């Protein structure tokens, strides 16, 4: 890869220049604040940090975001009446092999058959930061937000922890912690369930001109950050180089997290499903439809409905022969 000035990378000049710039993280330069950002995860480079106890990206994420992790009031952790369950991860903060309110990125390992022999693939998994995110757009409290940079994040202040965002997310990314958040003030009313937590792409760091901690920390330089256009160009360049494939370009209507691999993602997804002990909960690499996009025709109809009603009324009253009433 040709070296290029970091200013070009961050200021987002030409797509080609930016694509080439994707590489070492810059932590001091002015950030790309006004344009959409994206990340690229190169599965050809990620080795899962097998030589470390905790993958570097996971470790960095936990360190940087430790202050944002839930601090529940144990006395408020109760079953979600009338259900007999609740979600409490506060005793499982050590888990690093899945997403939890205390672990916003994990590395998924699958073995695929490629070129006649088995190949281990390590996949850093976190929020996909979708272009049209149902979790954010369908949040009933407006607390699951999307920044102008395209980062999907949850404002914990008014989150009730209803977990709808997790239900509508094809990857079930947001995770719930009970005993924390605004619903605890309504105790003992049986409403709410906690607060939802997930990757916020280190939005504060981005706005400070830094890159997300997971990307900054990767010893393999397997992750890259930049403007969406630059990342897409770079993903295509690498896919061509590997004679490989891109995940996230069109999946779910496009996502802000792109993956590139020499192995077809259908094959990877098949491996994820077949090798998962909990198939239903496996974080897949499938091609889910974005159901928000399916209803765009209804949205457009709704937007013109008031006009249609007004026009119909105008037509109904244009005739001089009026309906008799008892006014």
């Amino acid at each position, binding site marked *: 890869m040709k070296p290029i000035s970091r200013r070009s990378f961050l200021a987002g000049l030409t797509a080609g220049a930016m694509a080439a710039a994707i590489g070492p993280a810059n932590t001091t330069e002015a950030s790309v604040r006004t344009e959409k950002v994206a990340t690229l995860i190169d599965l050809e480079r990620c080795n899962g940090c097998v030589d470390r106890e905790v993958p570097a990206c996971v470790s960095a994420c936990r360190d940087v975001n430790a202050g944002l992790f839930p601090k529940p009031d144990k006395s408020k952790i109760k079953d*979600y009446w*009338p*259900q007999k369950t609740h979600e409490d991860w506060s005793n499982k903060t050590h888990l690093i092999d899945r997403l939890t309110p205390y672990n916003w990125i994990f590395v998924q390992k699958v073995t695929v058959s490629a070129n006649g022999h088995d190949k281990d693939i390590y996949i850093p998994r976190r929020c996909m930061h979708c*272009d*049209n995110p149902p979790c*954010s*757009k*369908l*949040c*009933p*409290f*407006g*607390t699951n*937000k*999307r*920044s*102008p940079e395209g980062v999907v994040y949850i*404002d914990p202040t*008014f989150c009730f922890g*209803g*977990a*709808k965002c997790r*239900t*509508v997310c094809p990857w079930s990314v947001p995770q719930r912690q009970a005993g924390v958040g605004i619903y605890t003030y309504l105790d003992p009313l049986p409403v709410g*369930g906690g607060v939802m937590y997930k990757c916020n792409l280190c939005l504060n760091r981005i706005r400070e001109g830094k890159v997300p901690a997971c990307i900054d920390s990767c010893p393999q330089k397997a992750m890259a950050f930049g403007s969406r256009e630059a990342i897409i160009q770079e993903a295509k360049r690498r896919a061509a180089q590997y004679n490989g494939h891109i995940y996230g370009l069109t999946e779910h*209507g496009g996502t802000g997290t792109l993956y590139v691999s020499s192995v077809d993602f259908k094959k990877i997804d098949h491996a994820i499903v077949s090798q998962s002990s909990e198939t239903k909960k496996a974080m897949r690499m499938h091609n889910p439809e*974005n*159901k*928000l*996009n399916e*209803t*765009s025709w*209804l*949205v*457009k*109809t*709704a*937007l013109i*409905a*008031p*006009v*249609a*009603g*007004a026009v*119909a*009324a*105008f037509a*109904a*009253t244009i005739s001089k022969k*009026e*309906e*008799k*009433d*008892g*006014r």
Partner: protein
Amino acid sequence: MDDRILRHPLRVRVNHWLIALSGIMLIFSGFGEMPMYKRYNVVKIPGLAWSEDFHIMLYIHYIAAIVFMAAVFFHIVYHLRRREFSLLPKRGDLKEGIHIIKAILTGGPEPQHDKYLAEQRIAYAAFGVTILGLIATGLIKVYKNLSGVYINPDILFWVTNLHTLLTMVFVFLLFAHLAAFLIKANRPLFPSMFTGTVRSDYALSRHGKWIQDMKVKTQ
């Protein structure tokens, strides 16, 4: 005078019921957009297992909203064009409303009413403001669901919660509207929303101002 008097023409009745039925569907699907039905076991009610599906609820909400908004704007333009303003509040309605409620509760004589009671005119204004607020916030919420549309998340936060708050007001007003029929004197008005007519003796005895007004207009 005929035995029955036309109170609500067919178009008005159809419009009213379109608003009412779509409004009820909006409440049902709106609450269904909250993560409630699974938690509170609505999904276990026979025939309602599908109610946990947020996307089905979204479809219902959109379709009901289309009918609701079209009917509301039909109502506004239709009556504006016909210059029919008998449901709009008048000066002194609040005072008269209190007087009427006192009379109903104590069994005392009610004053003669216009086509609508003072309470109905006040309730109409409350419904109107609430509904217009729901439509305005709802349209923003709908618009933001289009791919590629970006609205400031802080604005969306307020819009979303205002929509929810107005829904609560709407539900309260709906119950108040229905509770009016607990009062015996109001009951003849209920079938008139289906048949369109009320008995002339009822109209004469309770809505004297309305009858007088009609006589003046037909002279």
